[in-house]
């Protein structure tokens, strides 16, 4: 797996610690403006990370030759078509 730029959970921790710092009034005005800018950037990045993945369900199968193939998979439709033929695969 390629290393991600920043992990979501690390950014979330950073954001919350920035909020705590500003709330505690520990920072000078300039530092808190800087912290605010970093915070706003983190909010943007976090929201992006939550939304960046596309919703999809796929099915992975392996051909006789050992090649892996992925195809879209609709479990609801799958239930309907397969319920008609009994292939001996127990429904668990």
């Amino acid at each position, binding site marked *: *797996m390629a290393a991600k730029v920043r*992990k*979501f*959970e690390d950014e*979330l921790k950073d*954001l*919350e610690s*920035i*909020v705590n710092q*500003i*709330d505690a*009034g520990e*920072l000078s*005005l*300039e530092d*808190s*403006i800087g912290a*605010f*800018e970093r*915070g*706003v950037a983190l*909010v943007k990045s*976090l*929201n992006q*990370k*939550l*939304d*960046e*993945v*596309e*919703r*999809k*369900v*796929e*099915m*992975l*199968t*392996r051909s006789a030759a050992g090649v*892996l193939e*992925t195809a879209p*998979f609709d*479990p609801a439709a*799958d*239930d309907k078509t*397969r*319920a008609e033929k009994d292939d001996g*695969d*127990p*429904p*668990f």
Partner: protein
Amino acid sequence: MDEQLDFQLRGGRARALSVTALLRMVRETLEANLSDCWVVGEISNARLAPSNHFYFTLKDDRAAVNVVMFHRAFQHVRFKPEDGMEVIVRGRISVFEARGALQLYAEEIEPRGIGALQIALEQLKKRLAGEGLFDDARKRPLPFLPRTIGVVTARRGAGLRDILTVLYGRFPNLHVIVRPAKVQGEGAAGDIADAIADLNRDGRAELLIVGRGGGSLEDLWAFNEEQVARAIFRSTIPVISAVGHEIDYTIADFVADVRAPTPTAAAQMAVPSKAELQERIAAADAALAAGVRREVAGARETLDDLAARLRSPDGRVRELRLRAGQLALALAHAMGARGRSEALEAAHLRDRLLSSGAASLAARRHRLAELAARLDSLSPLKVLERGYAVVINSRDGRAVLDAARVEVGDELNVRVMKGRLRARTIAREV
């Protein structure tokens, strides 16, 4: 007591053992050969002593043996052994020397029914544990926010439906890769192991859920097999086991990084709730803006205070100038030309005081304006998105911060997130 006694018997020499020596020999012989054995039989005469040691007789239709299970071992027994129950007991055979009684000292007891299978399972468990497959040290933490999740379960199973329902309920945009597998019957273990290997080869999933819905112990057996255990162990992707059986642990549960009691529970552990995360981010976002607004307001107050205090040097300078003027006059009278230079110096002093005070005030004002501009430029739209509006007085084109500066009848230009409104001031409260 003598261990043995030599004596004459019908003219020959013979050797007799003491009872103690005999029993010790018997005990040592038994213990050397039967230190760990499994015995199948029926329980009778079961009784729990006040010491919490458990005593019973294990018998079949031709023979019987006394069994003792000490509290130390008995406390781990998950069922209640009762008279008439068929059980498998593991323990060592020994002799209670004081009564010359043969006894089985039990370590484990299991109900019969799947006897041989159970023994095999225990042996496999012991072997895999010995190889370190169950070690806590190798358990990997689950990723906090996996975007792609691999699922190994029956294609038409209730388990798959439960997993997908819960996953998408918690996180509506997820990528799920299902690798269907046969989960019971001939070849199931091999198929499950292949599925885990396939998802590893595919490499996109950041987390695997391997399991099935509930069933009898026999139905779940594939998850007790070595092939599955080794496939989970070899997986470079963290694995949640999800075998639908609340009470018993399968071997897959021991090897997996995290064990979930059901497929539904596995899906809950797999992803955080997106809505909760969004709430956390939004709360932090709002707190950021509020915090900085407070900081700026505080700074503005400090500055106003400073500005108010800076006015007083004007008075002081006037005073100095007056005094200097008086001095100059006095000096001029007293010393002629020399007094004029003193007056000049006093005038200089006055100028310097005035200009430095003004410059420092201007510099601070400028800095504040700069900071405020940076703050405002960051994301005015974000503020509007939260339902706030900007009100501009059309009369002077300035944002309305103080109702006192708006006259009844003034036209106001209201900027909301989408579009603008023109409004007229009907009344005002200050």
